[in-house]
């Protein structure tokens, strides 16, 4: 199997991100600490194996790692994350 067949977009783990962060995160913007590329989380590359690894779409540096254990998710974040949340309106 070629390497490009094994990765998906950040979109693919939108549900998992909601489960972990409690909000839609694919529209969040992240700046890579290695190459400086700014990209939406939904446009990052996702590799799924034992855990889930999210990588910069430009240089492949690790942006996030989520490992799911029976009772909890372990999350590692790297780089600069800009996240917008709507303020609940009265």
């Amino acid at each position: 199997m070629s390497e490009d067949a094994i990765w998906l977009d950040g979109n693919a783990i939108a549900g998992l991100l909601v489960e972990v962060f409690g909000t839609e995160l694919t529209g969040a913007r992240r700046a890579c600490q290695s190459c400086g590329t700014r990209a939406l989380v939904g446009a990052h590359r996702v590799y799924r194996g034992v855990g889930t690894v999210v990588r910069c779409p430009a240089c492949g540096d690790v942006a996030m790692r989520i490992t799911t254990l029976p009772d909890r998710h372990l999350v590692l974040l790297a780089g600069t994350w800009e996240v917008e949340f709507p303020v609940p309106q009265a």
Partner: protein
Amino acid sequence: MERAALLERLTSRRAPIVWRTATVREIVPETVQGRTIVLVVPGWPGHRAGQHVDVRLTAEDGYQAQRSYSIASAPESPELSLTVVVFEDGEVSPYLVEELQVGDEFEVRGPVGGYFTWRVQDGGPLLLVAGGSGLVPLMAMLRHHAAQKSDIPARLLVSARSIDDVLYREELASLAGHDGVEVTFTLTREQPEGWTGASRRVDVEMLRAIGLSPTDHPKIFVCGPTAFVESVADRLVELGHDPASVHAERFGPTGE
């Protein structure tokens, strides 16, 4: 603010994304390997065209399997439709395509995905490129376009192995040629007698022939298997389209 608009704002902000029980209301055969599952989901908060849901199946012994599927129905549709094409060696899709019956229940979570979406208010023109069942979220966009009676120019290029593998054939034929919608097919493996359309993989010439140039600043959505999306996205950038305008959604073995 109009009541309906206010309600939409409130529900879209407040409705939690949780697992909900979906009941199969109808099953519509689409191709030999694919069918549309029409669901009733109490409490469904509504969606935007292009979003997907997570589907969770639970076996009698408690074993669970979870996959993501694109939503095929327009946001305006009262029901939630998923079109599933069977993946060989898949664990979930063979069940959904071959076993599932009307009245069966499973869990869905969503809608999710805030990146690969389009609403008429986002404007156009639209350039949509589908590889195989990558047509599903793009169909939701065209259905939304039709439901809103939009005349935003929309060009859809569908790459399929054969004419029998093309999802929504009749509906695409009825949408094409109206309200700015044009549909082009390329059949890469097998062509019917007298086929005058393209029969090769998507290339620069084919994308150029669709007629939206980089100066039209189209909103571009490409969906299909990973290798297909990679190739099409590269060709689009080669043609001069802004990489930032190319929204991609790939699916592959790890997605099923």
